[in-house]
């Protein structure tokens, strides 16, 4: 089987995956979700009004039709309107995507670069106290709940010290920049722990490979080995790790967006959760699931492309 056939096969595999994801979403959101009529009509709703609304929302359709609607929406992105705000969900998503990305892209990029640099550095000193304490700090950083970082960071750096904006957002570059600095920093602190730990493991795995021993035996310097060979080979798992995280970036960071009033998709999702706004939760679930499915195909293909060790079956 050559690469093209593999890619095609992998693409075809998307179809059953989407059908399955739609199935899970259907079971959770259509079979067991609460009645929207009460959410939408408020404290003075009458029985007749509820019935009218149900038929308008298509909730009296047979189950198979409701399931098909979900599958369809994965391709058309027609998610209907929010139950609470009555806004078109697609336009909410379009509006929220940019602010989310202005936060998540720089934060993700910076945290990846920083983590890889640190992990290269500590694997150079592997086994020494520097490595050990770096690992310890990473684990320590991971052990504190993200809420504590956010609550405390906002209070101390934005309010007490006044270094950053407390919350808010302006659209357009560079107006948004002052508003995202603190959330970006918190994001980096949050992800540096797990990231460094992961990258370090990947690099150590490479370092203990036979070719490194050979290279050493040939008299190559530690630095050359690390940068030329180890980093190059470690890139495969690193790229895989990075690419597969990308779909989740569109969700931004639920809590960060809410605390810093960034009008992104994370905030939209969280609001959906607070208000039991099922079309919104459903739309965000479908959206991220689709992105995940597409990106995992990309990852798989990259993986096969760069790593000849992976057998094509």
């Amino acid at each position: 089987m050559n690469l093209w056939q593999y890619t095609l096969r992998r693409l075809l595999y998307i179809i059953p995956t989407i059908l399955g994801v739609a199935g899970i979403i259907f079971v959770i959101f259509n079979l067991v979700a609460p009645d929207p009529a009460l959410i939408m009509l408020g404290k003075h709703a009458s029985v007749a009004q509820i019935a009218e609304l149900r038929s308008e929302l298509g909730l009296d359709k047979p189950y198979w039709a409701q399931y098909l609607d979900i599958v369809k929406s994965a391709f058309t992105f027609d998610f209907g309107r929010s139950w609470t705000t009555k806004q078109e969900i697609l336009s909410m998503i379009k509006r929220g995507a940019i602010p989310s990305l202005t936060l998540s892209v720089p934060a993700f990029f910076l945290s990846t670069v920083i983590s890889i640099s640190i992990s290269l550095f500590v694997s150079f000193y592997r086994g020494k106290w520097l490595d050990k304490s770096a690992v310890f700090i990473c684990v320590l950083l991971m052990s504190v709940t993200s809420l504590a970082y956010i609550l405390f960071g906002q209070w101390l750096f934005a309010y007490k010290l006044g270094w950053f904006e407390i919350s808010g957002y302006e659209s357009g570059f560079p107006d948004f920049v002052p508003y995202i600095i603190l959330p970006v920093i918190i994001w980096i602190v949050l992800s540096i722990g797990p990231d460094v730990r992961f990258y370090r493991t990947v690099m150590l795995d490479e370092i203990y490979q036979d070719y490194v021993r050979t290279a050493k035996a040939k008299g190559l310097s530690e630095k050359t080995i690390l940068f030329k060979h180890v980093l190059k080979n470690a890139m495969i798992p690193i790229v895989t790790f990075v690419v597969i995280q990308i779909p989740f970036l569109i969700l931004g960071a639920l809590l960060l967006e809410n605390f810093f009033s960034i009008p992104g998709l994370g905030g939209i999702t969280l609001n959906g959760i607070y208000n039991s706004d099922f079309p919104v939760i459903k739309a965000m679930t479908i959206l991220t699931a689709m992105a995940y499915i597409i990106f995992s195909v990309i990852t798989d293909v990259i993986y096969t492309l760069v790593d000849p060790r992976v057998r094509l079956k």
Partner: protein
Amino acid sequence: MAHTSVQSVDEISLEKIPSRKSKSLWDQAMENIFRDKMAMTSLIIVGIYALISILSALGVIAADWAVEVGPSYAPPSGEFLFGTDIFGRSVFTKMIKGTEVAMSVGLVAACISVVIGVTLGSIAGYFGGKVDEFIVWFYTCFQSIPTIMLLVALSFVMGRGLVSMYVALGLTSWVNLCRLIRGEVMRHKDREYVQAATALGGGHARKLIKHIFPNVSHLVIISFSLMFQTAIKTEVILSYLGLGVQGRPSWGTMIDDAKLELARGVWWQLGAATLAMMIVVLSINLLGDALRDALDPKLKGK
């Protein structure tokens, strides 16, 4: 390897662990851990936490968490270690009681996901073919949905409370282990000793349990520690979202209280819960690392 897309932190390193044939490696691993001071300390701390939660579950300690011991919002002092909350209850006692919730959430959720992961993983790996394809398809679909969304949806479905928290966390964290086990079982099932068992007329179940499980159990132990601490951390986030434990203190609800209190200068509830959580998560993490190092011969003797 058709569906190797997502490789989580631990998987990568785990997949490289070569298979083992003797029990002596376990003994050696234990020996390693006992020699490692940090790992020993962590083990002891986790033990203390476990003890505290058992005692608290039995009502020996912290049964009086709901009792008013002082004024509302008394700051930490000699009398009130960690201060008091809005009702004048001791934050320290609440923290102890919260340990019970956290440890039980960690334990039960990790158990649930281990059971699901190991069962599905070994069935897929062992039987292969259509069964395997179906299970792989199922977890691929499952994994495509962000965990937080699944958690939220499950808490809506099952209502709020400790039990639904166990189930929701357990149901959402089995995929990685399942995939790992599947891979390992596949690797083992064609080996000579399993073949030999077949020749001797061993049934499927017998082969799986007697011959294959012992050889993949290290994966379970390491994944368990990982799930354990993830569950503890997730409990906090769920409580913050209003989907958490009810009617009893948990670290999550304590931190949730704190978001209104911090602006008043009441930091001790946030502090106590964060500290309690930090220590145990840190210990479990360090212990998990030590276990992995001990079980991975390549990382040994670095």
